[in-house]
């Protein structure tokens, strides 16, 4: 039954015009970044690395390659994507309550838990497809337009070089893993807006509330106050950019970077666990409330 419900929910999601706002927004932003970098990328690179990029031996001297463009897009776009996710997932229950179809749906011989689970899974599938769309445009299209080469990442006044050479490609797998982390972060946003959607009668409330929660938690995460530093490790927003951990290498006893490694596997595992834990927590609260809820809309 969940499979039938999931198919129905996905069909409904992809027949709604609002679903495509996210896809169009991502396409426009990525295209603008790619166009701007095509037009005047080298000057911008010089500014970004303070001319230090010349100090690195990059294959073909192509610092402005597809991997670099994708890294830049991820940095820019992953701040806005939660809004695009909430736009759909915040509407999944509240939108139906507002339209009056929720009561019709819940008079069918299907348990409420199944209805909610199918909606949640559909929201996760939408988030996944949105991220795949972003990967296609930001990674694959950029690789096509700008080619592939070593990736230079400017991290805390240190420039890290990830190689693409005869020994292999040490970058592509990092992007795959980075997108997986980005997905976990967006899934927790989806779960938050979905949970808020259960308590609302129209979709504006959950969407605005989700963004408000993210903004407040992000402020808490960035302010270095003793009280905040105690709660920071437990906020999912502290791990929204955990994907960046994939672009930091471990060093050996001599201080040399270990190719194919990540700086802290434990920190990445903790980030993933906390993001997934929040997904489960938000869905659990939503499920409890939805099962008890009187449908009066």
């Amino acid at each position, binding site marked *: 039954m969940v499979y*039938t*419900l999931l198919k*129905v929910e996905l*069909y*409904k999601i992809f*027949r*709604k*015009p609002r679903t495509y706002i996210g896809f169009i927004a991502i396409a426009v932003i990525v295209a603008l970044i790619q166009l701007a970098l095509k037009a005047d990328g080298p000057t911008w690179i010089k500014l970004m690395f303070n001319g230090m990029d010349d100090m690195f031996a990059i294959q073909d001297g192509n610092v402005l390659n597809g991997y670099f463009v994708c890294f830049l897009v991820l940095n820019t776009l992953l701040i806005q994507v939660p809004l695009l996710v909430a736009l759909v997932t915040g509407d999944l229950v509240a939108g139906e309550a507002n*339209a*009056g*179809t929720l*009561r*019709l*749906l*819940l*008079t*069918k*011989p*299907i*348990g409420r838990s199944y209805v909610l689970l199918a909606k949640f899974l559909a929201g996760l599938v939408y988030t996944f497809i949105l991220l795949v769309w972003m990967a296609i445009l930001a990674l694959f299209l950029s690789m096509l337009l700008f080619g592939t080469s070593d990736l230079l990442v400017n991290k805390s006044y240190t420039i890290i070089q990830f190689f693409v050479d005869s020994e292999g490609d040490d970058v592509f797998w990092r992007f795959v893993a980075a997108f997986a982390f980005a997905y976990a972060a967006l899934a927790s946003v989806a779960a938050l807006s979905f949970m808020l959607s259960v308590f609302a009668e129209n979709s504006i409330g959950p969407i605005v509330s989700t963004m408000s929660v993210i903004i407040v938690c992000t402020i808490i995460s960035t302010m270095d106050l003793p009280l905040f530093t105690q709660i920071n490790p437990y906020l999912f927003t502290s791990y929204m950019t955990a994907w960046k951990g994939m672009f930091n290498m471990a060093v050996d006893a001599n201080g040399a970077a270990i190719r194919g490694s990540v700086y802290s596997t434990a920190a990445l595992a903790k980030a993933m666990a906390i993001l997934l834990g929040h997904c489960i927590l938000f869905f659990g609260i939503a499920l409890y409330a939805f099962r*008890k809820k*009187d*449908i*009066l809309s």
Partner: protein
Amino acid sequence: MQPLVQVQHLHKRFGDFTAVNDLSFSVYAGDIYGFLGQNGAGKSTTIRMLLTLVAPTHGSIEMFGYQLPAHRNEILRKIGAIIERPDAYKYLSAYDNLQIFARLSGIKPTPKMLMEQLEKVGLAARAKSMVKTFSQGMKQRLGIAIALIHDPQLIILDEPTNGLDPQGIADMRHLIIALRKEHKKTVIVSSHLLNEIEQVATRMIIIDKGKKVTEGSTQELFDPANTVVELQTGDEHAVEKIQASAWSHCMTATEDGLLFQIRADDVPQLAKDIVALDIPIEQFSKRHSLETLFLQLTGH
């Protein structure tokens, strides 16, 4: 006979407000069971409790021999419903909506079956049109198609004539009667429109402020000795003429006209006598007997 629906001592509280207060009633197979009450009387809350949309504070609901909520799915499989507005997914076509709700009702509909159902409600020509382009009447017909697609035994209609034009209201009335007579369905229909219930119900319940006021068959509830006839005339001496006749004891003069409280089978004789008394008739009508009963019982 075992009732199809048996509700006992049903209560529902929202905070301090009691929406339904110790409500008990039974619906039997083949009934058109009228649920009558003013707006806010507790009709919709009760119907939502039957459909598991609202959880009772306490009390029991048994349908088809099963208890709610333990056998929720078995029960809902046998019910089709329209609750207040017949809402469907506006961004989908009538066909898509019907297909989705058919699947969710537990059947695997063929395209032929779906088109036949749309044909029955007169929407076949608009099968592929988006619901957002539909009139209220068309949405209502789609709602009926959705409610009936899985051939339910019991149909629950909550305020089904809301927002309909006179033709739509008449169509709905005919449909309710046809569901019982031709398709052998049991129907629960709620309305605050006394006239509508009176014309279709075989049994009914009147509720007020969440409490049952009365329940019974239409024949039981309508006292034939209590028919009210209203006469409007321009004759200034009409009152004196009637007071001098055999009808004086059952006449009351009001601002609206002259009211006669008589037996139903005396109405033709009264009409004849008024003509014989040379009173010009502007209007001679039987007041809705249900309205009279309702006002008497609820004291509104």
